[in-house]
């Protein structure tokens, strides 16, 4: 048996990978649910109910999807240009740190300008954090997979230091936790009384903006050209290095918005468990979305629903909520395989 490339994959073949990957992950989860003593149908029913069965559940899912949209977009924009940003986790925390630094009383401004300034400053922090590995890549050919990945650990330890030192809340009774944001620096709720903040809207707008950038602007064209074939792009006169650096700024900025949105919209302060790996999950989201910005929104909602639903399911049926992690991991693995199979066909000799 071997693989032969397919000349022109149709729409069905291109949409098949995510569908197959999700179906496959359900299959794996069913087996594990059986082993754990649950009825797969009951398990998935409980996940669905837990994720969207009530107004509260639905809002929780949207809240959980918000940072995943940001990190998913960050990864998608970078991967599209073949800049392998594995460091969205660190960039998220960079945004969160800046939000806390500016939002806990350093600036006493009216809410809107304050939020704009904090948002922009967060993006800058995330952008600069990714600029370092990007410069190392373009200047010295250092593999950005390694540098961005390792930056995650370095930066998390740095945040840990900040929370034990300069940013530690004096009123926090010794917990490694920052002071709370002043009320002007909080992202308000979209509708009073409903637990959903403007960060979600910002995420949707970001996805739309990125979609427009990708399809309508020279930068979007350049990023894709560099990602598809840097040699041809350079030959055609596209400034490859500059495009990679711009991509890094965009990607890092988007990831940082996740941190800004989580702190200013949801948590109100910074702790070391702000992100349960949103930066890494963003990679799954981006891959499931085939790097398409609008697909990222759908994929983030799906992933968030699995997580939120699995928590509820676990409480109701006693099947461990680790099932959610396994579903995502298997979905990603199958996605990689399915993408391959959508471009090739298996030929039997």
């Amino acid at each position, binding site marked *: 048996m071997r693989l*032969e490339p*397919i*000349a*022109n994959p149709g729409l069905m073949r291109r949409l098949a990978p995510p569908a197959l990957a999700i179906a496959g992950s359900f299959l794996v989860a069913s087996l594990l649910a059986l082993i754990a003593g649950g009825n797969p149908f009951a398990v998935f029913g409980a996940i669905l109910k837990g994720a969207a069965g009530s107004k509260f559940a639905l809002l929780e899912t949207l809240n959980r999807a918000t940072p995943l949209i940001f990190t998913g977009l960050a990864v998608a924009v970078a991967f599209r240009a073949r800049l392998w940003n594995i460091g969205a986790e660190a960039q998220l925390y960079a945004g969160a740190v800046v939000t806390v630094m500016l939002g806990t009383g350093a600036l006493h401004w009216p809410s809107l300008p304050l939020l704009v300034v904090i948002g922009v400053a967060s993006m800058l922090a995330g952008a600069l954090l990714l600029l370092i590995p990007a410069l190392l890549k373009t200047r010295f050919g250092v593999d950005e997979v390694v540098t961005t990945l390792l930056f995650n650990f370095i930066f998390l330890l740095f945040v840990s230091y900040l929370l034990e030192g300069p940013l530690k809340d004096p009123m926090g009774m010794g917990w490694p936790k920052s002071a709370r944001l002043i009320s002007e620096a909080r992202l308000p709720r979209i509708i009073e009384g409903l637990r959903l903040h403007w960060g979600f809207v910002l995420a949707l707008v970001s996805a739309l903006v990125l979609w427009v950038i990708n399809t*309508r*602007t*020279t*930068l979007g*064209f350049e990023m*894709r*050209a560099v990602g*598809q*074939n840097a*040699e*041809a*792009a*350079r*030959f*055609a*006169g*596209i*400034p490859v290095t500059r495009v990679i650096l711009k991509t890094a700024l965009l990607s890092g900025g988007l990831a940082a918005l996740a941190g800004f949105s989580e702190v200013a919209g949801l948590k109100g302060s910074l702790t070391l468990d702000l992100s349960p790996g949103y930066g890494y999950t963003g990679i799954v989201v981006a891959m499931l979305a085939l790097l398409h910005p609008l697909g990222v929104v759908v994929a983030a909602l799906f992933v968030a629903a699995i997580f939120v639903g699995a928590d509820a399911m676990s409480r109701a049926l006693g099947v461990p909520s680790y099932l959610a992690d396994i579903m995502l991991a298997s979905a990603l693995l199958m996605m990689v395989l399915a993408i391959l199979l959508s471009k090739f066909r298996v030929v039997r*000799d």
Partner: protein
Amino acid sequence: MTASDQAQQPVLRLSNITKRFGALCANDDVSFSLGRGEVIALLGENGAGKTTLMNILFGQYSADAGEVEVFGQRLAPGNPRAALDAGVGMVHQHFTLAGNLTVWENIVLGTQALTAPRLRARAAKARIADLSKRFHLAVDPDAKVGQLSVGERQRVEILKALYRDARILILDEPTAVLTPQESDALFATLREAIGLGLSVVFISHKLHEVMAISHRVLVLRHGRLVAERATADTSHEELAALMVGGAVSSPKIAPMPPGPALMRLSRVSSKGEGHAPGLQSVTLTLHGGQITGLAGVSGNGQGALSDLISGLAMPSSGQLEIAGEAITDWSPRRALARRIGRIPEDRHHTGTIADFDLTENAVLETYASDFARHGWLDWAAARAHAEALIQTYDVRCPGPDTAIRLLSGGNMQKLILGRVLETRPRIILANQPVRGLDIGALNYVHTRLAEAREQGAAVLLISEDLDEIMTLSDVIHVISQGRLSPAFARGTMAPEALGRWMAGDGFAEVAHAS
């Protein structure tokens, strides 16, 4: 023994071989046989299915239908080992040697058990020495392959096949990388080999070689065996017509006075990439209304020169002048701004982006200058431009939204040609513009380049094909080891004389004289 007697005792017989790749039928019901001591030439344009057929014979592909018999035994399909054991040796177009090993290690590689404590060097070297003497294949068995010339590497490849007791040699485009002199040496070796009872399948699209070396010629076109001729009973013209299925014509280059000097390189040196040599104090002037041909064996600095002109590299010393202006800042975009049109050597990897559609590839060089305002792309205009290119340059394709990788090489090249010519370039760099194209596309590209010349453009034509260079060029330079020969006017040099320059001989005389 006459040729017909030989054919009666075939050492090799291919019967009804058919091979499909998707919709493409690479080999369609091909049958032939090869006699002992016979050389058959497999002639056809690029893409006619020659290499596929030989890969089936050698077991690298398995055929969808048909079978291969060697010395009367059916060969297991899809198994190169079986082919080797049966006495089939193949010399690939791209060599399969390890540069960091010595000649004898390369030859022995794979013939001795991996578990052996050490290679039996002395016996192996003695055998290699014997073979190289018998077949006039002079190489030093202890030399590192990485330090050998291309011609020597090919000798190692042939020795490798002979060392494995090959009785049938398959040579895939063996002269593509050789100077005329090296080709002659190869032919001498082949004559030696057939004298000793070996049989040879010789793949080529160069007619004069086919006429010189083969007993029989098989012509492949679009995967089908369209003709079989005894070499003695056929002619150059007949084979050319059979190969393309029609008469061949090349554009007329009428003499015209040279225009102004549009580009001047004065003692330019530059760094090469990897093992390829850079330029060594090259002085070159390109005049408007002239085609300047650059002959040379590939890998002798053509890459460095074309990188320089395309804007990818700066001279490390010396001066580059365009239209009388010295260049200090240089990049592909600046080259485009100075109206240099570039047809790159590798149209698949450098000239186009495979998964981009025709529209995107058509505006790859001009999207920012001609199809965007304040960073916003005008896709409607870009698409219209692509449609115009497709029309004007006869690009056969389903439409501008087709991914360019689905196009044939010829149509891909027409799009690149259109992209270049539509900008009305003053200087055109054409690096191997027709390599791998069928005769139709080849003539089209040549005609368009000749037209650009008539309209006053300075064309630099880089090619390994001496015929192409001699047919089209007003002036010819030869490049060897990064050095450039003096300019030779059209019709003043015989191919053999140019061949000596290609081998690097003329340069020594110049150095001597000065």
